[in-house]
């Protein structure tokens, strides 16, 4: 098993196995496979610092979205609010533990783990260093990356509000706005492939110098 002389010069289409020579892309350019049309590579609009800033924004929004209730219902003067964790706990108590675990994973733990690991990796990368656990975190991101569903939850909240509006007084709470902003950020993130970190020339992390 050998690495080719300079592995970064070649790129293999992930969907049809066609081999290309990599070339630098200009702003806004996207390289597509001529054979199957899959995206090969795209220009990274945000540098390491830019993505780090986006991640920090997303983390703040995620915190707010989880602290504030998403929606409040009113019926004859009684009020009832729902937060994300209230939802997860309610499903657990109502004998739907499978759904409860699914929601906890795809709406809380995986998004949180994703943001924390990207933030951790970039915090070191901006100083030209490989973060401790670099390999494991990037491999982890590859596997749990597709299992984050916050944007589906936002649409779900919208549908739930419309359904509940027939019988109750519905008040949108700040949580739903935080979720809306989070969804916008997620859309921006969808265009960023963290695997470019593998190709950066990063020095190994050492205890003496810190991050």
């Amino acid at each position, binding site marked *: *098993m*050998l*690495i*080719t002389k300079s*592995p970064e010069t*070649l790129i293999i289409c*992930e*969907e*049809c*196995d*066609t*081999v290309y020579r990599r*070339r630098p892309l200009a702003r806004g350019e996207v*390289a*597509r496979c*001529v*054979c*199957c*049309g*899959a995206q*090969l590579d795209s220009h990274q609009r945000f540098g390491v610092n830019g993505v780090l800033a986006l991640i920090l924004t997303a983390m703040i929004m995620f915190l707010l979205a989880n602290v504030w209730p998403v929606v*409040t219902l009113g*019926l*004859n003067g*009684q009020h*009832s609010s*729902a937060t994300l964790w*209230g*939802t*997860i*706990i*309610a*499903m657990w108590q*109502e004998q*739907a533990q*499978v*759904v409860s675990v*699914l*929601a906890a994973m*795809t*709406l809380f733990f995986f998004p949180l783990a994703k943001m924390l690991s990207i933030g951790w990796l970039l915090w070191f990368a901006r100083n030209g260093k490989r973060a401790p656990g670099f*390999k494991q975190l*990037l*491999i982890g991101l*590859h596997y749990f990356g*597709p299992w984050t*569903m916050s944007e*589906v*939850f936002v*649409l*779900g*909240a*919208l*549908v*739930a509000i*419309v*359904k509940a509006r027939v019988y*109750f007084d519905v008040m949108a709470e700040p949580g739903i706005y935080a979720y809306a902003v989070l969804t916008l950020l997620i859309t921006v993130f969808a265009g960023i492939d963290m*695997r470019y970190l*593998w190709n950066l020339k990063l020095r190994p992390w050492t205890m003496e110098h810190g991050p």
Partner: protein
Amino acid sequence: MSAPAKVQALPRASELGLIGCHVCGLVCRCPGADGGVAANACCPRCGCALHRRKPASYSRTWALLIAAFLMYLPANLLPIMRTASLNDIDDNTILTGVLELWTKGSPDLAVIVFTASILVPMLKFLVLGMLLISSQRQTGWARVQRAKLYRLVEFIGYWSMLDVFVVSLLTAMVRFSVLSRVEPLPGVIFFGLTVVLTMLASMSFDPRLIWDGRDTDD
């Protein structure tokens, strides 16, 4: 990537004795050419096992797809949600939920829910089944279109979770003791499992299989 005159002239990794790591994308040279990859070959950069194709792609995808379909039947036949108030109890299935949204709420959202909970899972079963059968027969038919369909299924797959989250949210919100309550019913569990299983199925399908054997066919 300048467009070459002939698409067929483009080299494939397996012909060049190259292999791309499925996790980190590193291009590795594999001495055991022609399909043979050492059983324990690992990517020198990330340490993950190297494969030319996702391992046991056909059997895994078939198994997951069939399991998903078996979950899909109770997901649609059983009620997913119970709305209880002082004078009546109403059990909703996915379809009646859509109908109620259409008549009482907003028709546009009804279309979105219908797409996410009924159309998308059906589309996934049909598309993945078709991709599996056509790739196993190594047909050269409509390869570009099939590749596009696969990307579509990968992209829209997780939006089917919509109804599961709607039921969860309503359960958490509508808790007015005896006056009005919403409870989840078993259908929603089956539906959640259907979505997870179809996502796993589309992940374990290897789109490279669509293009395998193209030299003999063209």
